[in-house]
């Protein structure tokens, strides 16, 4: 990461190889199309490169920091489009199943299994909790927008977010996935 900040193209290539797949996948999950996901991923990585990679260790791992930037860019892209609301429940698994199995490397297969386990952990949340979390994180909606959308008090939305996030945290602490 230090070398990326020092404008070393080879270090940047390694950095992209490590996190580009997760970044593209996240961007696709948020914006819902491959062309938009490419644009978002490119913008995010170039902003990291051109900003001198101001990574703050206190904000978590390099990967989390990077994916946070990608998420913000993707949400900005959604808002710029000002089109229909993002799909909230499109079937990622079904989209993935359409790819031939031999497209997946071993590493991707492991990532996919890990993603599946995490997805299961999220699916085990009560739907009212997972819904507000997905609307906020993948949809980019504020808690007041979500409250209006779901016709529920603001306090209830905050409470469900809190409960859902605490449950995921406990599952992580227990080693799931």
């Amino acid at each position, binding site marked *: 990461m230090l070398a990326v900040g020092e404008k070393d*193209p080879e270090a940047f*290539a390694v950095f992209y190889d490590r996190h580009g797949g997760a970044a593209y996948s996240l961007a696709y999950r948020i914006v819902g199309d491959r062309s938009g996901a490419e644009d978002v991923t490119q913008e995010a990585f170039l902003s990291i490169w051109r900003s001198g990679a101001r990574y703050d260790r206190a904000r978590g791992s390099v990967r989390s920091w990077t994916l946070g930037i990608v998420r913000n860019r993707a949400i900005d892209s959604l808002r710029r489009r000002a089109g229909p609301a993002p799909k909230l429940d499109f079937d990622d698994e079904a989209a993935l199943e359409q790819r031939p199995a031999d497209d997946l490397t071993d590493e*991707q297969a492991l990532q996919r299994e890990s993603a599946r386990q995490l997805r299961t952990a999220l699916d085990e949340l009560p739907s009212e909790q997972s819904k507000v979390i997905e609307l*906020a994180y993948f949809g980019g909606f504020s*808690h*007041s927008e979500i409250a209006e959308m779901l016709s529920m008090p603001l*306090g209830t939305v905050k409470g469900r977010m809190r409960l859902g996030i605490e449950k995921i945290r406990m599952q992580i602490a227990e080693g799931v996935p």
Partner: protein
Amino acid sequence: MVRGERDHRRWRADLAAHLLGALEPAEAEALEAHIESCERCREELRWLRPAVDVLPESVPPLEPPPQLRERLLTEVRADVAAERPAAARPGRPASMPFGARLRGLFRRPVLAIGLTVIALIAAVAGGYALRGGGQGSSTFHSSSAGPVQATVIRKGDSGTMELTGLRELPSSRVYEAWVQQGHRLRPSSLFDARRNGRASAAIPHRLSGADAVLVTVEPDGGSGQPTSKPIVAVPLSS
């Protein structure tokens, strides 16, 4: 209940929403100001953060298109080349105008011969271009039978180039693409070969009216003018 505890409970309810990016900007700012002075909130934030950090990992992995990597690397190498002082580039004075550099190029016999051959190829290769590759795009192939083959897909003023048969270069060297129009050569993107001898490169500008795209091997960081004979040429005649 003491006031500090009430304050903490009030703000604590917002921590998850804050991590999810769901607070309004003014609310987020107020919460961050509170967190500065509240160790308990800081601790809770640290505890909860991994639960939000794993959310992107729950997304099924997709393979990004290889062109995305190539485009990014082209951009970052162009940034490095632009930031490098011109005087540091080998083979030419910093203030030498482009036309003089081009004339200098043609004073070098090997390069002059190579470029003349390429210009001839470009001139006679009409009809070699194939139409196709999608709406509004044209596909052109390299005309020589050498080990390195290239295909340029042009759309408007920009395009992409796919190459095969390349050798891996030492870290001190890089492949550089050039756009030729008449006797004028303009530097384009820098790129490396993959282990399988393939490479992709973006040609982001100036393909409208161009005669050919050439590739040379240059010092790392690229050159303002070719310093070696082209290894492949793709005539853009249609």
